[in-house]
C-alpha cells in the first residue's frame, strides 16, 4: 500500500502511522456524558470508503486526512490536515 503525501509524494505505507477514524467530531466540553461516550467509543466502521488520519511519521510528520476503501485498500484522496492545507492548495511556499 502506498500513500500519496501532498508534501513528500508517493511513499510506502510503512512510513506512515495509522491514527484512526477521522470522521468523528469531538463534542462541546460541557456536552452530556452520552455524547462523549458516543465520541470516545462509537465507530461507524464502514465497509468501503473510510475517512481516517495517517501521520507521515518517517517523513514530513504532517497529519493527513486520507479516504481509503477498507475493502480494497485503494486510497481515494489525501489531504493535509490543519492550516497547512489551505497554504498547500494555494501553492504558498511559507
Amino acid at each position, binding site marked *: 500500500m502506498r500513500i500519496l503525501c501532498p508534501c513528500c509524494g508517493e511513499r510506502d505505507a510503512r512510513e506512515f502511522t495509522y491514527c484512526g477514524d477521522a470522521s468523528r467530531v469531538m463534542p462541546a466540553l460541557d456536552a452530556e456524558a452520552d455524547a462523549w461516550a458516543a465520541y470516545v467509543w462509537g*465507530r461507524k*466502521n464502514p*465497509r468501503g470508503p473510510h475517512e481516517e488520519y495517517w501521520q507521515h511519521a518517517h517523513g514530513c510528520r504532517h497529519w493527513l486526512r486520507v479516504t481509503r476503501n*477498507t475493502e480494497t485498500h485503494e486510497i481515494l484522496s489525501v489531504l493535509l490536515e490543519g492550516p497547512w492545507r489551505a497554504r498547500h492548495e494555494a501553492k504558498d511556499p511559507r
Partner: protein
Amino acid sequence: MAKYSIFSLVLNSLTRHRHWRPAWRKAEPRPEYDVVVVGGGGHGLATAYYLAKEHGITDVAVLEKGWIGSGNVGRNTTLVRSNYMLDQTVPFYESSLKRWEGLSHELNYNVMFSSRGVLNLAHAPSQLDVFTRRANSMMLNGVDAEMLDTDGVTRLVPNLDTSPGARFPVVGGLLQRRGGTARHDAVAWGYARAADRQGVDIVENCEIEGFLREGDRITGVVTRRGEIRARKVAVAVAGSTSQVMALAGIEKLPIESHVLQAFVSEGLKPALDTVVTFGAGHLYISQSDKGGLVFGGDLDGYNSYAQRGNLPVVEDVVSAAVAMFPCFSRVRLLRHWGGLMDMSMDGQPIITKGPLDGLYLNCGWCYEGFKATPASGWTFAWTIARDEPHALNAPFRLDRFRNGYALDEKGRGPYPGHH
C-alpha cells in the same frame, strides 16, 4: 446420523469407506423458528448447540453467508489458553479451557485438543514482573501458572535462541501448561454436527439482507433465501458485526474491523512441542500435528475488510520468527492469509441481550475468539434462553464502555488496533 466410534470406524473400513454420511444435513430454511442465529462460525454453531443441549431449545436455525468453516474459525492460529489477568476475564476464559478439555467427548468429534503448554516469553526484568503479577492473578482465580527462568525456558524449548547474544535475550517466561492448541476446522465441523444431531437447521449460503421488525422489536430476518421469522435473533458475525447491525439501524458500535494475518510453513519433523509467544515484539508460534509451523503476529494496523494482509506485516512477523528461532531461517513459507478481527475498544468481547428487543449480540472478539468458542457459545445460549446474562458473561455487556467498566487488561485506551 450415527455416533462415531471404534465400531463405526471398523465397519466403514471394511466397506471401503463408501457409506459415511455427511456430518450435517443441508437444511432448507423454514419460514419460522424460535431462535435464528446469524453467523455459522464457531461461536454461532456453539450457541446453537448449547441452546439445544442445555436449554432444550431445538427449533433453531444457524444462517451462514458462506460455508461452514469459511470465516475466522478456519483462519485462526488455533491457540487455546486462559492466561488473563482481570477478575472478570480469567473465570470466563478458564471456563472455556475447562470445556475444551472435554470437548471431543462431548461433541463425539475429535477436535484434537492438545495441552502442550503456552509459554509467554519475557525479555526484561520489568516484563517478568508484569508476568509474575499476571501469574499471581491467575492463581488467585484458580488457574495454573508457572514462572520460568532462562534455564527453564531453554529446557522447555531447546530450539529457541536463549543465549545472551540473542537479538531479544530471554530472561524468563510465564507458562500455562494446560493451554495448547486444537484443530480449528474440527471445532467448526464438530459443533455443526453436534448441533445438527440435536435438531438444529444449519443453512449455508444464506446471507441476511435485513431484519423484520415490529416497532423497536426484531421479529426475524430477511435473507437471500426469503424471510424467516423468529422469536429471538442472535447475531455472532465477528468482523461483519457493524454491517449486520447497521441493517437493524444501529449505526455505531465500539468495534473496528481489522485484518490479522496468519502463516503456515512447509511440514517439518517435530521441532516445537509447545506454544511460544513473544509479546515484546509480536509473534506466536506452534507446530501443527501435520508438521507445519503455524504463526502470527500483529494486526496490519488499519481498518480493513479485505480478508488479506499486506507485505510489511509478513516481513515483520517472519523476521521476528527467525530472530527467535534461528534454526527455522531456511524453512519455506507455505501460505499466509488474513481474517477480519472485530476489535473492540478494550480488547474484550461483548456478549449481551439487545441492543434492541428480540436481538442478542455476540461480538468484539479481538484475538480471543477461537479459544473462547465453547464459553462464548455456552454463555450466549444462556443469555438468549433466559433473557439475562450468566455470571460469567455479565461483565461483557455493551454498556460497559458508556458506564466506565471497560475491561482493558493492558490499559491501552479506546484504540482498537492497539489491543
